[in-house]
């Protein structure tokens, strides 16, 4: 795999793997993500894409291998420590704080940036007001980026689907991460919403200089925006390369569509 420039990669994954009982969900997974690189992670259902996300964010403890963020070893750390170090994610099935306001959803993710303690909170000292005010302003800025200005006081669960997805991105942004993991951000979106999402992803990447790892089933989207694509099948990496290389890779086509040539052709048409 080509390393991204001379600089140290933002994320470096070495032989990462996890075993559930007798099943190897992910097996010797290797990957490097350079600064502000946008990488796609694709594969058929059950290939282990979300498991990779769960491993990198500390939800699962890897049974083998290790991964590094900016050269710091991350395995064994708890999710919130990994988030503090700079990896944030969104979820395949949206996980917002549904009964809280939109702005509180974002503010919650900035919790670790606050320093006031119980005393300041209870006595509402100037420190409290200053920090909360700064927090509100920052949250509003982030909501503007994901085109949710003016919705600050809405209950998050009442937002339309596309906006909920964008709010989740804003919440991830609020953690001040270096690497953003997006788990099927365009799932269930209509073409216009997907287009808007694409814009946002591009904007975020250029504005914050962050790297993005994207799981997506919408192939046209993946092909359009990803610089490199990594294909998983049954927990193993079967191909890495540019979108063009991936589109012509026989193993990838096999994994997605099966081996029979006639079937491949007919399925390709319906796609």
């Amino acid at each position, binding site marked *: 795999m080509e390393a991204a420039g001379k600089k140290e990669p933002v994320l470096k994954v070495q032989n990462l793997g996890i075993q559930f009982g007798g099943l190897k969900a992910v097996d010797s997974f290797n990957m490097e993500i350079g600064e502000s690189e946008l990488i796609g992670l694709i594969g058929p259902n059950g290939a282990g894409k979300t498991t990779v996300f769960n491993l990198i964010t500390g939800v699962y403890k890897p049974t083998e291998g290790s991964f590094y963020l900016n050269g710091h070893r991350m395995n064994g750390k708890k999710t*919130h420590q990994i988030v503090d170090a700079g990896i*944030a994610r969104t*979820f395949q099935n949206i*996980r917002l704080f549904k009964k*809280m306001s939109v702005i509180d959803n974002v503010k919650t993710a900035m919790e670790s940036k606050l320093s006031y303690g*119980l005393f300041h*909170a209870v006595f*509402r000292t100037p420190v409290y007001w200053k920090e909360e005010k700064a927090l509100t302003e920052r949250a509003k800025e982030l909501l503007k980026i994901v085109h949710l200005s003016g919705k600050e006081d809405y209950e998050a669960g009442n937002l339309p689907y596309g906006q909920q997805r964008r709010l989740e991105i804003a919440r991830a942004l609020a953690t001040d991460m270096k690497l953003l993991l997006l788990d099927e951000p365009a799932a269930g979106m209509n073409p216009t919403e997907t287009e808007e999402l694409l814009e946002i992803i591009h904007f975020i990447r250029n504005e914050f200089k962050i790297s993005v790892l994207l799981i997506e089933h919408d192939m046209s989207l993946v092909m359009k925006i990803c610089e490199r694509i990594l294909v998983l099948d049954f927990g193993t990496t079967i191909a890495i390369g540019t979108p063009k290389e991936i589109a012509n890779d026989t193993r990838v086509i096999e994994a997605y569509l099966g081996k029979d040539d006639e079937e491949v052709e007919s399925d390709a048409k319906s796609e």
Partner: protein
Amino acid sequence: MERRVKISYVINLLGVLAVFLLFVLLFESRIFGAATQYIKGICTTACYTIIMVASLNLVVGCMGEFSLGHAGFVSVGAYASAIVSGALTGKGLPDLALFLIALLAGGIAAGITGVLVGIPALRLRGDYLAIVTVAFAEIIRVCFCNFSITGGGKTMSGILKLSDFYWCYWIMAACVAVMYLYIRSRFGRTVKAIREDYIAASAAGINVTYYKVLTFTVAAFFAGVGGGIYAHYMTAMIPTNFNFMYSAELLSEVIIGGIGSLTGSIIGAAFLSSLPEMMRQFSQYRMLAYSVVLIIVMIFKPGGIFGNWEFSLVRILHRAEKKGHEKAEGGVQPWKQLERKSRY
């Protein structure tokens, strides 16, 4: 914005003061005649029950976990404060100072117990946590039945009667205010996020266990303070007072008042703690009537009397003011009514 907040504090303080003056007026004018002392007693009972119920609401409403062992913390606070006030009597302290020190000691003792219980127990969620809290409260009760310092299963009596209604009222107001400010700060926001979705919360960089234990401890602290008032009101207590039924009673008061609403807890606790007394005329059917009230409320208001809605004096005044404006401008614009905004 800051100005508006300051004004709202003043309004709330005036509201609390007005209620206090109302009580003073009622009691000092001797409207109830011979029953004054008795009614004052009921009001004191309501005060400490409000503190206990509001603190339980931090766990149940704000954190979304069922704790069935709140009486355990109450008993730790009650015994600790009774022991401290017993040790400090005759040291020349004024009654109020002695009372406050005893309550603080009770709160701190209960808070420490909260940390010790919370760290192992809060790894669990839902039904499992509920069972662990029941077990914990039983352990405390059994301990108090065997320690000699707590009377060893016999009644611990001779505690100073320090719980005066007027003091208790202000202590209650202060406790509820602190809990309210806790909920409306980063801590409450975080804990609510954990309640909504703990996986997403940890993915947002929140140390879930830390905030859960912290909130549990704050709740235990105030339960302890409530217990302290209880001890200095009853002047005698026995560990079996704090059995499972007492925890269940507190929990039912939270649910009746409204899960997640502190003002609901105040109304629920005040209502339910005085209900058995109000129903004395039904004599032996008292507890039956009490149960019937519970059932009726649950059928017609499943979310509790207040739901998760908070009573706000400021909002009512604001609305009245707005209505005045709108009348001057000519009616409410229909789209303004349609706008549905979050309550949080």
